[in-house]
């Protein structure tokens, strides 16, 4: 198992958000995490990335407990979080943004390989490499945010609502690229997404979350689309 969350209880200050959440992500898998607003999806990702330390429970990444680790060390261990709203560094160029993601790579050949891999996935980033990141379109910024997260060749990529602010057609293309990331870069993906229709079509497995708990686990993500369980989670 690549990632195991066991009985996580976490929150902000005195306010609890997650109540005994447990979930697993396997190697080479694209796992979708869906659920209504306020379910605690983003909080779950922040717990995994080390930005919030859980009050109880453990986060095992490749067998090692990372639940109390500082965020930059979690990242150095191979977990990369792409935060919501494609937050690229707007005052740096596209290339500098990617450079920021790849500083951990000491070997310059390895760095170049990583960079070329990103450019193959997102050719538009190579065309615009010396442009300020703030001048990219919304979709391009999201690609840059994902590319930046991939530069360090993480074992696990955490994507928080990559659809935010994207046109439906752009989103469809982006989902296809995310699948390509999983296949070509040998990276497992945990994706949180509001656009359930798009994400369940491409994900392998899925968890449905509600009010800080997992309410449903489905081995074939797409079947959820034709299932009542999902609708119940959102509506009841």
């Amino acid at each position, binding site marked *: 198992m690549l990632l195991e969350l066991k009985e996580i209880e976490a929150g902000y200050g005195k306010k609890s958000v997650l109540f005994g959440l447990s979930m697993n992500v396997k190697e080479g898998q694209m796992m979708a995490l869906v659920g209504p607003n306020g379910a605690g999806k983003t909080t779950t990702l922040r717990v995994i*990335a080390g930005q919030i330390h859980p009050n109880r429970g453990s986060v095992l990444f490749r067998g090692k407990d990372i639940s109390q680790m500082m965020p*930059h060390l979690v*990242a150095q261990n191979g977990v*990369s979080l792409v935060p919501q709203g494609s937050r690229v*560094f707007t*005052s740096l160029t596209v290339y500098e943004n990617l450079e*920021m*993601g790849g*500083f951990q790579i000491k070997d310059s050949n390895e760095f170049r390989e990583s960079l070329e891999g990103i450019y193959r996935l997102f050719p538009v980033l190579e065309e615009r490499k010396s442009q300020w990141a703030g001048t990219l379109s919304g979709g391009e910024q999201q690609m840059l945010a994902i590319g930046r997260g991939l530069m*360090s060749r993480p074992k696990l990529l955490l994507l928080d609502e990559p659809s935010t602010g994207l046109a439906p057609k752009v989103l469809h293309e982006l989902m296809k690229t995310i699948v390509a990331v999983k296949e070509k870069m040998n990276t497992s993906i945990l994706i949180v997404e509001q656009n359930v229709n798009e994400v369940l079509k491409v994900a392998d497995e899925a968890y449905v979350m509600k009010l800080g708990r997992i309410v449903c686990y489905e081995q074939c993500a797409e079947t959820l689309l034709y299932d009542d369980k999902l609708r119940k989670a959102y509506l009841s």
Partner: protein
Amino acid sequence: MEYVLFILININMYIVLAVSLNLIMGYAGLISVSHAAFMGIGAYVTTILMVQFGWSFLLTLPAALLFAAVISAIIAVPSLRVKGDHYIVMSFGIQFILTSLLNNLNITNRAMGFAGIPKPSFFGFAFESNFALLFVSLGFMLVCVLFAARLAHAPFGLILKAIREDENATESLGKNVVFYKVAVFVIGCSLAALTGSFFASIVSFIDPFSFTLDESIFISTLAIIGGSGTIRGSIVGVPLLIAFPEILRFMQVPTTVAGPLRLIFYGLLIILFMRFRPQGIIKEY
């Protein structure tokens, strides 16, 4: 001639102050109004060691550097763990405490300060004339600016800008944000302290009024109007801002009017810049 030399020396000093504050404020985005206090630390360490303990100027430099580095690290480690804009309020506090200490401690000679501080000497060679002192300040300025420029263009500078924009995102790329913030603060404050050392020895008189909150804010103004986030901005901006008000002296304006006029000039300049060119003289991007 002496007058022109004095202005040029002043410009060199302020360039180092603006550049070092720019690393903290322009690059890392830590808005700080305590820069003059750290300049004061350097000035007093050098002065006390020279006047009361008879050290040579050169030997006091590492002492001033180390002293300022330790103090700034002690302040930085707890306060820079705080995210967001709280730091600006803390730096207010730092400035007030340090000014008050300089005004009230016996070792700093309270409000009287020190006069007759020996001029800088290197390996027994003393620089006495103002012309020689200009070269001392010029050399100091060039070394500091080259150092700051190297730092700014290394990955270090890039990481600082990333922190300024988004601490969480920088952290999730594997960077220890607190370490970088503390590092740039210590480096910037140490440079300010060194400037204080040179200032004390060149001017040969210091008192607490040279290192007040007003002075800190003036240094921030230099950095912002020059262009925050660019080293070049500080270098271009400082001479303009220091030299321009001196024109008043040649316009037969009485000194009682010239002082307030100078402040009005600065005030207007800040307002106009913020309205029409908030990025400063040299744009970052």
